[in-house]
């Protein structure tokens, strides 16, 4: 469902010059699978997801949603995806129902179908009590539900979550995790990024560990265990990232810095 081939991205920054954000990142996500991109802050997770969301262009390589290239067939890709980001806001002077209809219509979905989708989503995310209230007074949990609703209203096949629990309290974060699991049960393909190890461990069918713009490992938890000889994801993560750091220090060519 998702194919990422040798993706590279260099940002041009006035102060820092050219910054290498991604280099030769490749992975696959099968239909109905949850794939977690795990990495520390600044590893390149958001850049990867923004490229897949057609928000930014890669410097090299390409990525495909279904058979559509994120560079050549943006319109087709956009029809297939729903995006949720930790930094996404909601329209403050609108209600969840209005936001749902607005984004549904922008994506060429007829009102009857939007209504049907919204009924299901409101039930799924337990939003019924506040669907007709303006979002300006919402708690962060209610806002996050509204953001997820907005991504789901088009009934996309692929959902991209960029650190969906960032900034949320434990209970709301757990609810969001439960919704992602529910969505997988509903046949969605899910790609999500996180720096929280337990989220990846509990949810993901496969995990990609990304560090300084490089996808250093990817596979199921079982495969990662076999490769590293470690049991726990935390140990696996630090052994992979630590080995990568050692390698970078030895070659004195730090990544994610000036090139």
């Amino acid at each position: 469902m998702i194919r990422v081939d040798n993706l590279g991205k260099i940002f041009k920054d006035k102060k820092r010059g050219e910054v290498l954000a991604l280099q030769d990142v490749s992975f696959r996500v099968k239909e109905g699978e949850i794939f977690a991109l795990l990495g520390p802050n600044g590893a390149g997770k958001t850049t990867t997801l923004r490229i897949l969301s057609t928000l930014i262009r890669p410097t090299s390589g390409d990525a495909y949603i279904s058979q559509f290239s994120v560079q050549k067939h943006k319109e087709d890709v956009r029809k297939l995806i729903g995006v949720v980001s930790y930094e996404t806001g909601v329209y403050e002077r609108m209600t969840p129902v209005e936001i749902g209809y607005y984004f549904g219509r922008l994506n060429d979905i007829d009102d009857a179908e939007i209504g049907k989708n919204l009924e299901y989503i409101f039930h799924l995310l337990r939003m019924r009590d506040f669907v007709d209230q303006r979002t300006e007074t919402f708690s962060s949990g209610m806002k996050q539900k509204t953001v997820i609703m907005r991504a789901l209203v088009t009934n996309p096949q692929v959902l991209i979550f960029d650190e969906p629990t960032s900034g949320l309290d434990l209970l709301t974060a757990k609810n969001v995790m439960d919704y992602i699991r529910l969505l997988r049960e509903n046949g969605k393909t899910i790609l999500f990024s996180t720096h929280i190890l337990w989220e990846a461990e509990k949810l993901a069918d496969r995990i990609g560990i990304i560090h300084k713009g490089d996808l250093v490992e990817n596979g199921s938890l079982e495969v990662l265990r076999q490769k590293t000889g470690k049991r726990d994801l935390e140990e696996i993560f630090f052994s992979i990232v630590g080995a990568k750091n050692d390698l970078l220090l030895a070659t004195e060519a730090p990544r994610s810095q000036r090139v």
Partner: protein
Amino acid sequence: MQSKTILVFSREIKVMFRDRRLIVGVLLVSLVLMPFLMGFIGNIDRMLGSDDTPVDVLVFVEDDRVFALLQKIENVRIFGSDDLMHDLKDPYFTITKDENIFKIHGDGTDPRLSRVLQEIRQEFESWKETLVLERLAQAGLPKDALSPFAVEFVDMADEGKESALVLGLLVPYLVIILLVANSIRAIYVAVGEKQDNTLASLLVSSAPRRAIVLGKSFAIMTFSILSSVLLITGMVLFANLGFSIDSSVSDINFSLSIGQIIELLINIISVSLFVSSIIMFLGTYARNSREAGIYTSPLIYITIILAVFSISRSTFSTKVYLVPILGNVLAMKDSFLNSLSWLNLLLPVASNLLLFSLLLWGSVKLYNKESVLFRS
């Protein structure tokens, strides 16, 4: 794309009308503050009641004829040198005579004295004229011996044309400044998505960038036109209720022909398109409202400088009509004076539309530029 433009436009308008601070601000400024200020400034003298207060005149001339001519003037209290102990009220005149020159002493900056001074001079002039006529008659000379002819200007302008002149000079200046100022108030439409982190969701939708930019630009334009119309309506209403910008404008005839209304509409819509596209462009580039404010502030100063030409009574060459804003105020002025040629209307409209298209294209470009969309 058209339906997406309408969708974006409708949402922006709906959200703008829900912004209580914005709406209350516009209503307060349009229907209360501005008309009140204009009325207050225009009527400050009348409100202070200074016109009705009598002016004292102290006469040091021993000539009954001087007293007699001064008595013809209303709202004047006359005192002779014998009345020096009298309690004179400021401001006052003193009249003396040096040889054959009557000297009127007083504060020339006082508006009440200026009005009375004019009347005193008139009385002295007509007395002088009578004396000259008497002396000519005594010498057996004809009445026109000292003044063989006179020059007189006969103003053929009717009341409507005079009103149109006042409107033509003043209204375009106000309208254009209000349009720009109100467009700037709507900059949140352009910068809000980025400021509130809702932009990414919009960009990931199937709405083309051009539809987003167009929908938002039209929303800014609609807001700016509506709020400006509201403001002018407020001023007109208050003028009709007794407040006026100036006492000379109180009898303005506000009626316009259908042709003039169409000209004004075309002009206002075209300049609104241009201004809203500037706001859209600057708002798209800015990271937040504060930064957008810095970018848009020169716009209002440039507008004030260009709009001030509408007050000028000079005629401008056709080329000048190509300069946006300046061309629009001049065309608006010509509309009020009923002297607008289609060429002078088409030139600013064409220039507005060209710049609107360029700026719109620029905004769409910015909407595709990663360094602008994800600037931190």
